[in-house]
């Protein structure tokens, strides 16, 4: 009798096990199918329009999908923004992480800094965007964009340009790069520091010549992740870059004497171009939007591969 109830309990348990297992396989296969479907859908929809010509011609303001031109200026715009953002954010966040991991020995000030940076990391990008708009439309920052003219009594900066957007992006990626750099610096063994200090090197010398080179993989990973975030952001671009299709500075924008004018004027990036050409934007050209998305995804995949490659080279070093 007891044996019988035992086996039936065992059977019941086996059935619940099987049930739980099949439920999770079911849910996960749905999830994974959706993931693959998204990528395949984008490739199918985007590949028709994609060509070298598409990458190299300027977009044209038209409602006709066949005359819409290419994505050269949005592509350049994304690259410029990434460049400005990283140039500003990288030294800034590297020094912050050096302070947090090398100079502050668990003191309360550093703890407070960490909390502030954590909170900044959680702030939605749209809030950073309106913050950038608010701060850079002050007339003191007029040199970064252009002054509003023709409105009586208004002394205000326009607050929308590549420089403004790049600086706002730098604020957005700052906490992420700090986090990755700090982890990379902390992973450097204490014996490296002790060895260098025992040889008589100063602390700063130890940091620049010993610690940063041995943490370089992690630091580069942080920078590449930051680049991915800047390329993929739309909210900040939409509010602080203006969302015009082409570069609006002096033409042609690629001549060196017009660079400053291009940087202090509006333009577009891949993300804002996709938003503009999607049915939600001003013109409804989904084909072009999909082709733009495909280019964006390819850029993101390249950045991911770089991160993966860096991670691998690091693990090889460790094994040796």
């Amino acid at each position, binding site marked *: 009798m007891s044996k019988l109830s035992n086996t039936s309990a065992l059977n019941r348990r086996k059935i619940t096990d099987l049930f739980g297992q099949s*439920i*999770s396989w079911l849910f996960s296969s749905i999830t994974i199918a959706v993931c693959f479907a998204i990528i395949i859908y984008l490739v199918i929809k985007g590949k028709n329009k994609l060509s070298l010509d598409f990458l190299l011609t300027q977009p044209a303001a038209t409602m006709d999908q066949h005359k819409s031109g290419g994505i050269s200026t949005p592509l350049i715009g994304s690259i410029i923004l990434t460049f400005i953002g990283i140039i500003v954010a990288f030294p800034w966040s590297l020094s*912050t992480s050096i302070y947090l991991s090398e100079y502050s020995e668990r003191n309360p000030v550093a703890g407070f800094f960490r909390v*502030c940076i954590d909170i900044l990391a959680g702030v939605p990008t749209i809030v950073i965007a*309106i*913050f950038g*708009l608010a701060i850079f439309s002050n007339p003191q920052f007029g040199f970064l964009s252009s002054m509003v003219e023709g409105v009586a009594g208004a002394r205000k900066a326009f607050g929308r340009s590549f420089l403004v957007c790049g600086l706002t992006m730098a604020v957005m990626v700052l906490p992420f790069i700090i986090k990755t750099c700090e982890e990379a610096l902390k992973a450097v063994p204490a014996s490296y520091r002790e060895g260098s200090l025992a040889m008589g090197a100063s602390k700063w010398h130890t940091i620049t010549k010993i610690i940063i080179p041995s943490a370089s993989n992690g630091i580069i990973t942080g920078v590449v992740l930051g680049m991915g975030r800047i390329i993929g952001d739309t*909210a900040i671009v939409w509010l602080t870059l203006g969302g015009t299709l082409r570069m609006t500075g002096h033409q042609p924008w690629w001549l060196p004497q017009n660079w400053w004018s291009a940087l202090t004027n509006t333009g577009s990036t891949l993300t804002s171009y996709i938003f503009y050409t999607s049915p939600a934007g001003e013109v409804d050209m989904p084909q072009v939007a999909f082709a733009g998305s495909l280019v964006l995804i390819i850029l993101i995949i390249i950045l991911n591969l770089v991160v993966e490659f860096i991670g691998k080279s690091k693990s090889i070093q460790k094994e040796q």
Partner: protein
Amino acid sequence: MSEIRTSARTPKLTLSKVKDAVMEKIVFILAALSAAIIVIVFIFIFMKSARIFSVNGLSFFTTKNFDQQILKAFNAPADKPVWDFGVLGLIAGTFLTTFGAMIIAVIAGVTTAIVIAELAPPWMKRVLQTVIRLLASIPSIIYGLIGLMVVVPFIKSSLITNQMQINFIKYFQLSGNSMLAGIIVLSIMVLPIVVALSVDAINAVPKKHREAALALGLSKWRTIVKVVIPAAKSGIIASVILATGRAIGEAIALSMVSGGVGNIPNLANGPVFFLTPVLTLASAIVNKSETMSFETIQSALFACGVVLLIMSTILSVFTKVVQNFVKRREGNV
């Protein structure tokens, strides 16, 4: 002799010491600056929206019809600006879309994480992890585009009937851009985050936990449910909080698919509850940004930013508290 040597060495020594001290100060100032950013964000956003809060008081959080208020402020004469705004509809929209998306994302995300980390064969694991990591880094605009091209037409053609459209035409237009579309897009967007971080948390559980449970005769599934998941709980919770923060702050994708009208969905409407167009706090800022040149509207949008800022701060602090709590408990045990 020795005196000469020290006098020759002293200046060099002090130079490097001075450099050390100066660099330490510079590094400290830059660190203080990055911590100060969040304070500056708070000050600026509060300053820009102070007028809204002083005019509306607490009724800012309890009044609805944000869209009509924007329209009224837009049409108001320049000498008599209208400052009455209320964001109850937007808060409801934010809460409902985030909540719906998180339910889907947690169920599908945690089960997928279990399969990837514990059940799948190694080759499959590698492929799936690469795909999930790629999806976690896809920009939200692309999810918005796919939502607009696939999810919205699907909802329109298969869930909305003509009779429904006629019944609700005096309240809102049923076009497929709806809360349901928002929930679906948002859940697909945050799913990879939940999966990727949960897989990391599950992988961090020591192998000996599993071995002990298996040695005691537990089946593989029981080991996962009773031993591995409880041990990885804090990491999974952290991933869910992070994903919630992303969902609350998502602006572009939701402004594309969720309808852009600040309705409060009514449960009494039956299935139309899910098909109601809604507007969230973050997407309101994007949707109404074209009217930002009006000072009144600009302040109202900054007030939305204040609400978002407070929500995200609470979530960040909550994550810290959870981590500290777990750390302390594990330290005691």
